[in-house]
């Protein structure tokens, strides 16, 4: 892939935030700006989680090995947006009322699940560096990073539980996630040679199957 491609993708990933910022600046976030920000950052968290999870299947199905180099970036953007999402919640929604926030996390199923999804991403973000991969070793790192499956599932359930009646959007996410996770189940059942054929030898530095 061309050298400038990665920075371009990086900037594109900041697009949703830039768009929110631009709209906020122009007073164009509508009647309930805080809701728009919460929803937008939540949506993009989920989208980036799914994009991250799509890398491995795409790479294996297309044989495009370079894709793997974008996986960490997308995963970190998922984390970036969930941090914004969470900040919106504690700042704009709860105004740093820790007591209220804890009550919410304990009492509201959809917050409990969302919070779980968020907390699970923290160790993944921390250990996303090459140094940590080396320290943990490929196998253990890989195992740890399977938490993204749980986090994404938590994200979908979170969305499902928060809508009042119209589950069609969470359903779309659920279907995509189902396909991405289903692929892994099927792949793990197939003879190893077939799915591993294209695995790169650099797997210690960039372990696959996550």
């Amino acid at each position, binding site marked *: 892939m061309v050298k400038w491609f990665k920075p371009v993708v990086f900037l594109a990933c900041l697009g949703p935030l830039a768009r929110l910022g631009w709209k906020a600046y122009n007073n164009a976030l*509508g*009647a*309930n700006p*805080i*809701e728009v920000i919460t929803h937008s950052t939540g949506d993009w968290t989920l989208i980036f989680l799914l994009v991250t999870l799509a890398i491995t299947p795409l790479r294996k199905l297309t044989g495009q090995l370079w894709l793997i180099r974008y996986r960490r970036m997308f995963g970190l953007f998922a984390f970036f947006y969930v941090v914004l999402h969470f900040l919106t919640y504690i700042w*704009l*929604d709860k*105004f740093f009322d820790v007591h*209220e926030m804890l*009550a*919410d996390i304990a*009492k*509201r*199923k*959809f917050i409990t699940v969302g919070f779980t999804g968020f907390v699970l991403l923290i160790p993944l973000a921390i250990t996303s560096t090459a140094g940590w991969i080396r320290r943990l070793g490929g196998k253990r790192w890989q195992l740890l990073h399977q938490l993204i499956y749980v986090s994404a599932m938590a994200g979908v359930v979170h969305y499902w*539980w*928060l809508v*009042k*009646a*119209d589950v069609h959007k969470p359903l779309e996410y659920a279907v995509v996630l189902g396909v991405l996770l289903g692929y892994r189940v099927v792949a793990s059942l197939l003879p190893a040679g077939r799915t591993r054929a294209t695995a790169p030898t650099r797997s210690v530095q960039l372990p696959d199957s996550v």
Partner: protein
Amino acid sequence: MLIKKSAVIPSSEITPRSLYLNRRKFLAGAAVAGAVAAVGSRLDELATPSLTVDADAKIDGVKKSPLSTTEKITPYKDVTNYNNYYEFSTDKYEPAGLAKDFKTRPWTVTIDGLVSKKQVLDVGTIIKMAAPEERIYRHRCVEGWSIVVPWVGFSLSELIKRAQPLGKAKFVEFTTVYDPKQMPGQQGRVLDWPYVEGLRLDEANHPLALLCFGMYGEALPNQDGAPLRIVVPWKYGFKSAKAIVRIRFSDSQPLNTWNKMAPNEYGFYSNVNPNVDHPRWSQAKERRLGEFLKRPTLMFNGYDQVASLYSGMDLKKNF
């Protein structure tokens, strides 16, 4: 009451009320003559000069009401662009566009059930039953946001008294129009259409309960429930049914749409109550559109005068 296209006629040219009333008598007389020809129709329907109302029309002769709040009114732009109106869309920003061409004339409302005067009334007749008042009410959505709206209408009791409910009648049920061709949201099955809401008769007769056909001094915009809706300010917004085509009196509690859809989340009463949380979120606070911080939600949305309707009732059980 006069309803005129706001842009066209300067207020200096608006017909004086006395003159207008004379003309109205004349029209009514003409209508009586016409009634002979119209089989099975009722006098009060025909007396309607159907030339009066269109959307965007200014409503004249609106009296201020002592029931109004003095709180800051939410901007018109927000109240008309942020709507929970699932008949059009579950997205709050879409009804404004999707309801643009919704036809609110001709429009009739069926009044039936346990009343001595079962009838089909033209909406034009209904809105002339009593003098229009401006009622500035707080409006609290079950989702945790609120607005302050200058509604135009009169107490629902005005209509109820004319319908003459029988002694057995204990509840009133309101049905929203079912017209999937015009209401794209009804083409899906998000809710069980048509939308049904209900009140206990004594709730419906409370002076605060408003039969509403306007806001901000004009006819109701389509996305806010034109041509006729109710506004029950001490209850969560979904109790205030929009685009009403039927008002039925009964002796049994109506099964309102949201209650049917999720009985553990949305009760029949659905009074605004900061102490009873929605199973999935807190109702203790609300975001007033336009405000940065949430404000505490008030019992009965601050309309304490309705408390006596529920004396002796466990409002945690009857949520």
